[in-house]
């Protein structure tokens, strides 16, 4: 491995601007081969067995110190299969949470319901299909039971419209 590899083809690729004769080119190439041989005279000092063991011990221990449980978990999460599985679990959890949240949201009164009651203080407002059935001639009928105070006698009033909203109806029941 210590032997430099320097083919003539590579020499020509590295010195593309050399346009002299083939002889001159070969002479230059041989010169660089000599140069590389000279460089081989500077050998890399070998590591002793003790130095090798020492470097290994320090490197391994140094790396182990950094291998905290948190890093181990992060390392584990970087595995594609684990990441994929974690994604599925997270996705399912989110979907479950959203579905549960939707179920818990109170439904707002719908005009299509049979009877809806709104409370405001001591006043109650009744709307829905049941009220519409009672007064089919009235548009958007609503019965309001009003009490100024808790002990007051309740007053029942029918509100609505006629002729497509042209006439407003207020009728004490």
């Amino acid at each position, binding site marked *: *491995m*210590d032997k*430099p*590899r*320097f083919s003539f083809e590579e020499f020509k*690729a*590295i*010195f593309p601007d050399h346009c002299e004769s083939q002889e001159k080119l070969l002479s230059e190439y041989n*010169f*660089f081969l*000599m*140069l*590389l041989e*000279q*460089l081989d*005279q*500077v050998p*890399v*000092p*070998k*590591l002793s067995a003790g*130095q*090798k063991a020492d*470097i*290994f011990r*320090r*490197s*391994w221990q*140094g*790396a*182990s110190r*950094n*291998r905290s449980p948190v890093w181990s978990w992060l*390392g584990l999460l*970087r595995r594609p299969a684990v990441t994929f599985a974690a994604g599925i679990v997270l996705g399912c959890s989110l979907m479950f949470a959203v579905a549960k949240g939707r179920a818990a949201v109170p439904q707002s009164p719908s005009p299509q319901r049979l009877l809806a009651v709104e409370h405001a203080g001591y006043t109650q407002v009744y709307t829905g299909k049941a009220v519409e059935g009672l007064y089919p001639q009235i548009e958007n009928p609503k019965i309001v039971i009003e009490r100024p105070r808790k002990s007051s006698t309740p007053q029942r009033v029918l509100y609505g419209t006629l002729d497509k909203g042209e006439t407003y109806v207020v009728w004490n029941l």
Partner: protein
Amino acid sequence: MMDGHDRITDKALIEAVQRGDRDAAACLYHRHIDRVHRICQRIVLDPSLALDCVQEVWLKVFRSLGRFRYRSSFAAWLNSVAANTAIDHYRRSKRRSNRVDIDDPEVESMAADEQAGERQLDDELTRQRIQEALEEISVSQRTAFVLRYYENMPLAEIARILGCREGTVRTHIRRCLLALRAKLMAELNQ
């Protein structure tokens, strides 16, 4: 224990190391330590600096082996870590002069030793001249040269390590060769 591991592939050893197997780590280390040391030494050009560099390389390797994904061979990845760590090391220590002075006591003692002879002294001086010539070349040029001619790495791989194009690697190598030739002309013509 080591003999058993010698027949095991790098991949199997890496998987064992990822599970925390210290023996597998030792085997992987001993399999590649000489090459890592060669690369570091030839780039940083200083034996004590090379030792620190080698240790830093293996620290990085053991820390990041858990994330190694075989996008390239382990040896190629290790070469890349070694070369980049050595370049960083060299640049950090750039201000410190690592040159061996011509009045170095070792050389003086050799000169004084009659048995060493003139030939030995000449060889030693040539080595020092080469060392000086290598030190005067930029670290990128030297790294390109070392990886190509001592580690036989393909130009594309060297380009990836140095973060440049293959053409730039060729330029680095050409400049390195020309600088060495200029510096060592006298020795070569002897």
